[in-house]
């Protein structure tokens, strides 16, 4: 058994299951299946066809690819916006013919002929665009019509000029370079493709027109409703498609210098196959240049390969057709199931063995023994605040708390019956702290670290930190800033409880119990933010120690409190302060007598402790049953403990019925009272503490001030 559990431990230590979910949540994962198909196709044809990987073959193939991939990008652009362009083949043929005609017959220079051809083909695209974008004709029928008409035009022109064209021959160095040469040994057409692809990629993924294109493809109506110029964008997509066809036609003309009636026949089918095979969704809104390129390479290798294998004439289209069916099938299944799959595999529990908890039995006689000292908690602001995770008081005894509506609410002394919205931040305000200048610093779940200055102005302090080197998802943004405290030198240390869950399902992180959290340090002097400590198990409460040399932090799901030295000889070191807690520690704050208060937000249940040692059990549970039914930590009852720097628990305050003040996530001692906050509560509690310093306040403990203001 021992060896089995060691194996489990090692397996969960070294196999990062959570990465699967993170990879699946990335957008580029859509390329995984097309890329796999590409690798297979290259491997199969590489084996079947001799000299497949030879330099000359690669050169020829890449020259063809230069033309074909441009057509595919043209098709992709249109598909992305939710349409289809069947006229690419005939437009391509038109481009080819026009190039040859302008050069051979009209004797134009290359520099003039090429842009003209691109514009002519672009105008065909524009025609499509006007009909489809502005006049709202069906894309399929419209482009089918252009396919036929343009093809007819090309055939008529060919009939008239083919004789004259075949007898003349255009001679120029640039033309030879385009058709036969290349740059640095790379075929010219391939260079053009690379340039177009890079520009296209940047446009699509990093520019406003590109985003609009995708938005319109994703949902035309929504795009219209938010005020995007749907018609002109659609029209532009078809025009770009036409221009790209023209460019491809130029390259084709330069390579073969011949116009025939079979040029570009069936090309729309190949391009469509390539676009879909690459993973561009036919429904629109989902696609990329990379996908188009992958599709183009697959289709080109397959059609060429089938040809070179010498199969009979029908087999090429047959292979293509079957591949298209396969691609559409995969596309539909993937689109439908990707989110389902992600939902199922995202929660990835790991192994954690919690030490036996300290007994809380009423008769145990230790400091944690159950009692009812919190039964008579006074209630403040019942139903006026929701989710006051943290509470704090200023020197004038005003009481502040955050709410889940993103407000900071302030209660007025001495009876705390009247309240006002002190400031509105948004997000879920969690831990709070005063800096030296009496600005209120607030950790806001979902947003980051914010500051409310004395004029009630809300200022963002930081919402990002340095990105970890090996992280799959971008972990530089702060997802769940939780609690903060300020060191004597002004540095702000705050915890980010988890980087894998949003504010509304933070308890799910307990199912994982992995070190998903971190402690981040912001230095207001330099304005820099960096991660001080990572891989912590739900770091929650943060408190600067009484001597200012270290910060204490609670790791909730690990049921322990540790200390991080921030200055002095041991700076940077971490040591354990408190362990074997019977519940999950939350915020930590200073007490008046040089000790610390710590809120226990929930209690451990033995059945969950056993499950924590069985990650596969928890993983299956997360997949099989509804989230409401998952085994959770018991967050319905908690307590407050007081401990000292040596890690000794000195006392605990309980309410066994947990009726008056159901849940406790934080507490502040202030002038003889203890104020309580709880994240699932609709109230704040306070209780008088006997025998405590009635003049002590947290602000003065940090930043000094007049010693006695109210004689007591």
């Amino acid at each position: 058994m021992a060896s089995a559990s060691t194996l489990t431990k090692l397996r969960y230590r070294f196999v990062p299951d959570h990465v699967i979910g993170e990879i699946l949540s990335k957008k580029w994962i859509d390329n995984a299946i097309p890329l796999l198909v590409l690798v297979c196709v290259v491997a199969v044809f590489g084996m079947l066809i001799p000299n497949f990987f030879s330099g000359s073959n690669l050169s020829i193939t890449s020259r063809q690819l230069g033309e074909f991939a441009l057509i595919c990008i043209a098709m992709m652009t249109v598909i992305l916006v939710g349409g289809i362009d069947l006229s690419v083949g005939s437009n391509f043929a038109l481009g080819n013919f026009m190039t040859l005609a302008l050069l051979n017959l009209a004797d134009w220079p290359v520099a003039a002929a090429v842009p003209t051809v691109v514009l002519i083909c672009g105008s065909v695209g524009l025609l499509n665009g006007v009909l489809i974008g502005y006049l709202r004709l069906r894309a399929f029928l419209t482009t089918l019509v252009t396919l036929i008409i343009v093809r007819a035009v090309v055939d008529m022109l060919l009939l008239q000029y083919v004789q004259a064209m075949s007898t003349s021959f255009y001679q120029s160095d640039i033309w030879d370079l385009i058709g036969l040469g290349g740059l640095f040994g790379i075929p010219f057409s391939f260079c053009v493709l690379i340039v177009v692809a890079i520009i296209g990629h940047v446009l699509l993924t990093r520019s406003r027109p590109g985003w609009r294109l995708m938005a319109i493809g994703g949902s035309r109506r929504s795009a219209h409703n938010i005020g995007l110029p749907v018609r002109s964008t659609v029209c532009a997509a078809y025009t770009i498609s036409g221009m790209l066809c023209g460019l491809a036609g130029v390259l084709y003309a330069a390579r073969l210098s011949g116009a025939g009636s079979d040029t570009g026949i069936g090309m729309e089918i190949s391009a469509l196959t390539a676009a879909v095979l690459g993973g561009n969704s036919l429904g629109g809104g989902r696609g990329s240049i990379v996908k188009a390129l992958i599709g183009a390479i697959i289709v080109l290798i397959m059609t060429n390969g089938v040809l070179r294998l010498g199969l009979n004439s029908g087999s090429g289209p047959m292979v293509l057709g079957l591949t298209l069916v396969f691609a559409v099938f995969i596309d539909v299944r993937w689109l439908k199931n990707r989110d389902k799959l992600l939902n199922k595999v995202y929660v990835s529990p790991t192994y954690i063995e919690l030490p036996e908890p300290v007994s809380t039995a009423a008769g145990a006689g230790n400091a944690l023994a159950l009692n009812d000292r919190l039964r008579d908690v006074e209630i403040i602001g019942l139903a006026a605040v929701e989710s006051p995770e943290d509470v704090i008081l200023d020197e004038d005894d005003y009481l502040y708390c955050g709410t889940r509506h993103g407000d900071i609410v302030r209660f007025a002394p001495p009876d705390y019956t009247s309240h006002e919205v002190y400031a509105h931040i948004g997000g879920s305000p969690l831990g709070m702290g005063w800096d030296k200048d009496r600005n209120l610093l607030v950790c806001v779940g979902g947003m980051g670290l914010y500051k409310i200055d004395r004029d009630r102005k809300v200022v963002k302090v930081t919402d990002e930190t340095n990105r970890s080197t090996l992280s799959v998802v971008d972990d530089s943004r702060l997802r769940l800033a939780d609690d903060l405290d300020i060191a004597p030198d002004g540095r702000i240390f705050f915890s980010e409880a988890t980087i894998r869950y949003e504010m509304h399902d933070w308890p799910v992180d307990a199912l994982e119990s992995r070190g998903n959290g971190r402690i981040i340090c912001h230095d207001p002097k330099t304005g820099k933010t960096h991660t001080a400590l990572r891989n912590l198990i739900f770091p929650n409460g943060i408190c600067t120690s009484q001597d200012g040399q270290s910060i204490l932090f609670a790791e909730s799901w690990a049921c322990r409190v540790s200390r991080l030295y921030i200055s002095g000889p041991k700076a940077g070191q971490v040591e354990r302060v408190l362990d074997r807690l019977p519940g999950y520690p939350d915020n930590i704050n200073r007490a008046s007598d040089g000790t610390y208060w710590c809120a226990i937000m929930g209690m451990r249940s033995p059945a969950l402790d056993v499950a924590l040692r069985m990650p596969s059990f928890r993983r299956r549970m997360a997949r099989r049953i509804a989230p409401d039914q998952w085994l959770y930590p018991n967050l319905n009852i908690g307590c407050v403990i007081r401990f000292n720097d040596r890690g000794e628990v000195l006392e605990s305050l309980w309410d066994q019925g947990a009726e008056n003040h159901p849940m406790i996530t934080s507490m502040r001692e202030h002038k003889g009272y203890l104020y309580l906050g709880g994240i699932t509560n609709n109230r704040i509690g306070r209780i008088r503490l006997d025998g405590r310093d009635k003049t002590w306040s947290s602000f003065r403990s940090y930043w000094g001030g007049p010693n006695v203001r109210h004689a007591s």
Partner: protein
Amino acid sequence: MSAMLRDLADRFLGRGQAAVTVPALDGALKPNNLLEEAPIGFPAASADNLAVTETGLIYSSEGTLYRQGSCGGPASAWKHVGEPVSALAVSANDVVAIAAGSRILLIGPDGNERAELSVGSQPWAGVTALCFAADGSLLVAIGSARNGLDEWQRDLLDGGCSGSLWRIDLANGRSHQLAGKLHYPNGIAVEQDGGIIVSEAWQKRVLRLSETGKVIAQVVEDLPGYPARISPSGRGGYWLSVFAPRSQLIEFVLREPAYRKAMMAEVDKEFWIAPALRSGYSFREPMQGGALKQMGILKPWAPTRSYGLVVEFNRDFVPVRSFHSRAGGRRHGITSAVEAGGKLWVTSKGGGEVVAIPLAAGGN
């Protein structure tokens, strides 16, 4: 081979046998608060085993039997049995059969043992239900041969199917087994034609057996909870007490042998992930996500390990109406229910209470 592969695939994908689906409380079982809010309730620790006699009701509270007028009024202690009473039945001529410990006692209306009747010399341990047949013989349900009555949760988690049904001829004390390998038979009723209705708790169903113990039909299947005693209703149908709810988590744990073994070995049984007669009394009990209180309120539809439910079936075993005490309520763990004096009398073993619901109240 293919079956094995299919099981493996099912286990991986959570289909077939590995699917954890729980029937919804729907139709006639739509939740209400009629049981929780019923006006009449008398405290009685571990109240159980309600039965109707000619002079009123009797029920047990641990080792003591109480008499209770069927119109209400205070209960009076009637007989001390010593050991906790596990089952009770009253015959047509007011003979009371009491199962306690490993004995079955037969008592007349005067409280004295009926010496002329006998249950034989063998010990009768683990009796979960008793019922007199029309011919005067006594039907006895043994919940589990492997686990004691207070270990019923272990029996469920072990997949217990060692229950049995017996018939004792009281005239000569001879007994014979009618059916074996039952999944915790927990309630018996007898039909007009002599057929026997048995609730099988771990299979969440009710069976109809012939007089000789042959299974004829599964009259109720896939109940949303674990059934207990059955008693006749005033309209020719039946009242079925449901002592604990099913939940996805429990169904899931039942399919996880490694976790189940570790949990049973290391955790006290009141803190197991298992159905319970009462819950919410200790923070060490397992809690499920939906039971997280928000703004100090536990949602009544929260997942819970205990529940209070009585269902009325008509004579064709179609559910007609039900009375509920939902998550966070007190009147949980309903083990027996009888209809008398225009009221439905119910024992909430988990809540330690005898409750009466005026039947004019309806229910749905």
